[in-house]
């Protein structure tokens, strides 16, 4: 038949994309390792033909799967990457994204793509990766000797369905094109077959289209090829072809499931690359500047040589516990100290309690973990009770209330009540309660020089309106300390007003 000639030419001819000798093979260097009549051999040749026609040999990168086509790289004279079972689409994604001018082909079997690699193919398709996927569906696990594939036909016997595939037990043949056609991103999805020379020619056209789309920068293209596996099916090559044509196509109808090749907008993945010298600016590694646009105020570094502040800040999530700690660490750094800030983190940040450990020290900090604090800022009563017993004798506690619970007082520790939430409320926002405490701490201890906080304020306060409020809160905190020292509050059992 004259119309068979082109198909025959592909099957029996040799594309220049094929290596002349399969040097990477150990044994027979003129034959592929595929069984006679195997669809993989034909698909590989059709693929070579398409690469040749489009003139993209140098640009093509073949991603070979695990399965009978694991050795795809032995035959195609293109860039080759062999990958783990089912992961081709993930590998192809990364290659294409970093090398946008390459033409990336992920070649996969049905076990590879539709079982172990289901997540990878669905998500690569859904992201609209600009890659071409060739999906060889032979309804069986060839390489491992004939186990059920997700695409195995109903009632078909395999080594793991010895009584035949029973939908009640094994589910139904998975229809990949139909599945992927539910997604918005794919550009081209087509199911073809190797059941006749005519079908083989159509397969060649579909493969070419899938590659061409990529050449044009269009999105995700996949061609599913119904393909004979005479060896495992126990048929001779001609019978196997008939099975593909007459039986497989009843479960897997041929046809196009998506073709936006004409309407899809080409995408260029290439990006502009900044000069290396720009990197520090892009990464924010230069000097900080804040709401007022001013850059760092450099505080002369004259640290007190014996300074060793081991601070725990604790309270409810939302009280600004971590931020208060960060202000302290930043201010300590400005003043020339070694500092560390270690938070409690995770879900407890969203509700419940929160705390952080801050160290400010004249010498390099050994451990950032504060197991024996000499300063505790307790923004609620549970925090006071939790950390009080770990305090070093002689330490200082600032407690967010106007009175100290009577059973807490009298330790070897100074507890100063500062009703920071209430003070902040009067200033206009309970949110600056942490800044009231910070002002109080700096005033009560003099641990950091004036101006040390400027840089922290510049870096951490990005809105002008907060900047003023924060400064007012700091001032109010300083003043509160003096009120307390003038008239120390009697210990009482009163509850923290912040706790309502």
């Amino acid at each position, binding site marked *: 038949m004259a119309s068979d000639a082109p198909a025959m030419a592909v099957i029996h001819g040799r594309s220049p994309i094929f290596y002349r000798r399969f040097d990477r093979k150990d044994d027979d260097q003129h034959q592929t390792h595929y069984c006679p009549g195997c669809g993989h051999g034909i698909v590989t040749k059709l693929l070579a033909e398409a690469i040749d026609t489009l003139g993209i040999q140098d640009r093509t990168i073949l991603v070979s799967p695990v399965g009978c086509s694991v050795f795809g*790289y032995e035959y195609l004279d293109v860039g080759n990457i*062999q990958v783990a079972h089912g992961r081709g689409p*993930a590998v192809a*994604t990364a290659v294409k994204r*970093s090398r946008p001018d*390459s033409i990336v082909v992920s070649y996969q079997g049905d076990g590879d793509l539709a079982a172990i690699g289901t997540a990878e193919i669905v998500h690569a398709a859904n992201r609209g990766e600009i890659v071409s996927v060739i999906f060889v569906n032979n309804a069986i696990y060839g390489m491992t000797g004939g186990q059920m594939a997700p695409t195995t036909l109903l009632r078909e016997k395999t080594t793991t369905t010895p009584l035949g595939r029973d939908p009640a037990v094994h589910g139904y043949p998975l229809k990949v094109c139909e599945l992927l056609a539910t997604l918005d991103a794919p550009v081209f999805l087509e199911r073809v077959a190797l059941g006749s020379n005519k079908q083989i020619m159509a397969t060649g056209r579909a493969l070419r289209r899938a590659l061409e789309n990529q050449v044009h920068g269009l999105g995700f293209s996949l061609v599913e090829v119904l393909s004979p596996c005479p060896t495992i099916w126990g048929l001779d090559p001609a019978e196997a072809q008939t099975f593909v044509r007459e039986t497989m196509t009843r479960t897997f109808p041929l046809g196009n499931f998506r073709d936006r090749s004409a309407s899809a907008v080409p995408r260029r993945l290439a*990006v502009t690359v900044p000069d290396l010298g720009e990197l520090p600016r892009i990464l924010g590694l230069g000097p900080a500047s804040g709401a007022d646009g001013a850059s760092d105020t450099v505080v002369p570094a004259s640290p007190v040589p014996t300074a060793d502040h081991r601070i725990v800040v604790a309270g409810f999530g939302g009280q600004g516990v971590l931020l208060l700690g960060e202000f302290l660490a930043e201010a300590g750094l400005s003043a020339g100290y070694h500092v560390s800030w270690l938070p409690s983190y995770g879900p407890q940040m969203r509700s419940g309690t929160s705390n952080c450990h801050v160290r400010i020290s004249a010498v390099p900090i050994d451990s950032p*973990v504060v197991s024996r604090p000499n300063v505790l800022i307790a923004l609620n009563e549970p925090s006071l009770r939790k950390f009080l017993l770990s305090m070093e004798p002689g330490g200082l506690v600032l407690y967010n209330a106007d009175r100290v619970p009577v059973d807490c007082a009298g330790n070897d520790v100074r507890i100063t009540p500062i009703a920071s939430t209430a003070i902040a409320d009067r200033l206009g926002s309970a949110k600056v309660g942490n800044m009231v405490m910070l002002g109080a701490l700096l005033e009560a201890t003099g641990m950091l020089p004036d101006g040390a906080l400027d840089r922290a304020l510049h870096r951490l306060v990005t809105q002008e309106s907060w900047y003023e409020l924060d400064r007012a809160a700091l001032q109010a905190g300083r003043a509160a300390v003096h009120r307390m020292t003038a008239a120390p509050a009697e210990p009482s059992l009163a509850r923290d007003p912040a706790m309502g």
Partner: protein
Amino acid sequence: MEPQLIKGNEAVVKAALLAGCRAYYGYPITPASEIVEMAALYLPEVGGVFVQAESEVAAINMLYGGASAGVRAMTASSGPGISLMQEGFSYLAGAELPCVIVDMMRGGPGLGSIGPEQGDYFQIVKGGGHGCYRNLVLAPASVQELVDLTMLAFELADRYRNPVVVLADASVGQMMEPVSFPEPRPVPAAPAWAVTGTAATRHNLVNSIHLEPDVLEGHIRALEAKYREAERSEPRWEAWRVDDADIVLVGYGIVGRVLRAVVETARRRGIRAGLLRPITLYPFPTRAIRALADTARAFAVVEMSTGQLVEDVRLALEGSRPVETYGRVGGNIPTVEEVFQLVERTLVGARVPSEVSTNG
């Protein structure tokens, strides 16, 4: 550059970019999520690639793809995600692909907790994937070291064509400390073996399958030779006050810092204690530890796991000295006070004279 206060998980991304990393693939998980977020923010800005993968399985295989294409690439995760990546670790090592993986260890097994732990030591240091391979493993103890070691990781990955893991307990990722960042390094050209989709690289093959026994054995021997070379050249550690130490404390990461404070406390009380903090966990500083057996009488290993690090210390000492161990797990960090008690116990066990035991 001028020191700036920065969180570990943010610093690690900046360090990677300064080292020439231009691709990141990741999946969120506490306590490593800020890493994927920072990568999403910065990679596009430096002309790099960022992909939020559908799973850690996909992420590690994207890493395989990026590395195959000759790009400096990275991912990060924590326990459960790192477990999912083990297949990929094996393939990356088998195919000799350079890349960097950051593991911010959390509590396990299973979902465990999100608190800091060191329970991934075995799976990372000994190899949690199949086959005869090793990861090179770096263990930072501070945010500055996290930056320095992440940058080193990319160099080592290229030098050995092997995955390098930055193994940190989660507290190192979560804490803020001042960091001086170095100047950015030029992005290296793709190595000659990479598959980049050009005429020059058309014959290149990235691969881990070798069905012929002699061929695979040759490949494994070649990997082994690389690891022997790394064992000769790459062990790194911090030794502090070990010269006259009767007792040497061994711990890595955040524990190493707690141990420094313990050494201070012990010395104040007349106990000659010293610290050996492994910085590379593979290759392990075996010789450095063995050498200390000449002078120290006892060793105490402290870890945030239940007897993982201690195995390597015992192997290094080959029974020559008693080894005490102490561990906290589940998100707890050992305190100075707890470990100091261990020091006293160890000394009594080893009958080491010290001011405390002789006077007391």
